C-alpha cells in the first residue's frame, strides 16, 4: 500500500532547509511558494528517506483568483507519495519554474498545462502548444473560457 506522507511532517523538514518556502500544509498536501518550487522539488527528490524519484502527474486547477498546480510525487523505493502544490496569482501571465530538469516525465504535461491553462513554465525546453494549434485564441480549461 502506498503511504501518503503527511504534508505537515514533510513541511517541517522542508522548513528546516528552506525557511518560509511552505505556504500551507495539510495532512494531504503542502503548498510551496512558487519561486522556491524548484529548490523544494530538488530537495524532495534527492533527500535520503524521501527519494521522490517518480512524478505521477502534474496538473493545474483554475480557482478564478489563482491557479493551483499540483504535483503528485512518489517514491518507488519507499512506496510513499506526496502531493505538492504551487499557486500562481497572476492571471495574465502566470508562470512557474519547470521541473523537467528533475523529472523528465513532466515534459508533455507541462506543455499541456501551458496549452490548456496558459501557465508558462520557465526553463522548459520547448514551451509551445501541444494539443491545440498555433494561433488558437484562449486557453480552454480556464473557467472563464466560454
Amino acid at each position, binding site marked *: 500500500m502506498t503511504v501518503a506522507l503527511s504534508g505537515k511532517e514533510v513541511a517541517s523538514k522542508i522548513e528546516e532547509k528552506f525557511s518560509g518556502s511552505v505556504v500551507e500544509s495539510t495532512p494531504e498536501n503542502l503548498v510551496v511558494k512558487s519561486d522556491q518550487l524548484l529548490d523544494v522539488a530538488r530537495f524532495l527528490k534527492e533527500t535520503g528517506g524521501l527519494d521522490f524519484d517518480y512524478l505521477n502527474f502534474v496538473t493545474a486547477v483554475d480557482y478564478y483568483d489563482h491557479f493551483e498546480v499540483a504535483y503528485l510525487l512518489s517514491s518507488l523505493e519507499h512506496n510513499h507519495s506526496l502531493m505538492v502544490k504551487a499557486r500562481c496569482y497572476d492571471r495574465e501571465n502566470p508562470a512557474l519554474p519547470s521541473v523537467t530538469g528533475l523529472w523528465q516525465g513532466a515534459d508533455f504535461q507541462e506543455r499541456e498545462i501551458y496549452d490548456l491553462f496558459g501557465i508558462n513554465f520557465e526553463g522548459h525546453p520547448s514551451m509551445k502548444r501541444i*494539443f*491545440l*494549434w498555433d*494561433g488558437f485564441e484562449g486557453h480552454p480549461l480556464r473557467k472563464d473560457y*466560454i
Partner: protein
Amino acid sequence: MEIEPAKKYIYSDIELDREEGQVIEDLKAQSQQPIPDPDQWLDEELEQNILLTSVDALINWGRRSSLWTAICFPACCAFEMIAANGPRFDLARFGMEILRASPRQADLMITAGTLTWKMAPNVRRIYNQMAEPKWVIAMGACAISGGIFASAEYAVVPGYNRIIPVDVYVPGCPPRPEALIYGIQMLQKKIARRKNIDVRKILER
C-alpha cells in the same frame, strides 16, 4: 479543387507550426456550413464524363465489388472498423480487405472517429488525394454530428460533412460491425444505381 501552386518549403519548426495553425483557422472559417451530400450535385459533373453506355453496368459492378479503403481512422470507431475486417465479420468477403495506406489508390474513406479542427485539413487533404470516383462513409455519431463531443466546440468539428461530402451515414457510438456492413451494402446499391452517362443527353447532341 484548384491546385495551389507549390509553396516555398519551410524548414523552421516555429514557422511550420504557425503555417499549420493558419491553415486550420482558414478551414474553420470556411466550413461553417455542411457540404450537401453528393447526390445533390454530382449529376451535373457526371454529364461531362463520357463512357460507353453499355458498359455502365460492368463498370459499376467492378467499382462496387472492390472498394478499397483508405486508412484514415482517427478514433474509437476504428476498432469496430477493424473488427469488421477481422475474422468474425470479415469484410474481405466483399473484396475490401485491402487497406490502402496511400489515399491515391483508395476508393472509399470510412471516417471512423471524431474529427477535430486540427485534423480537419488532413482529412480534407486525404480526400482530395483520393482519385475519382471516391466515396465516403461517415461512421459513428461523431462523424455524423460530433456526437458526444459536439459540445466541445473549440476542438471538435460537428460532422465530417463540414469538410468533405459524405455519401452514407452509419449511426451508432460506435456502430456495430453489422451496421457498418449494412452501410457498405447501401453504398454498393448506390454505386449500382449510378449512371456514368445519361443516354438522352448524348442523343440530343
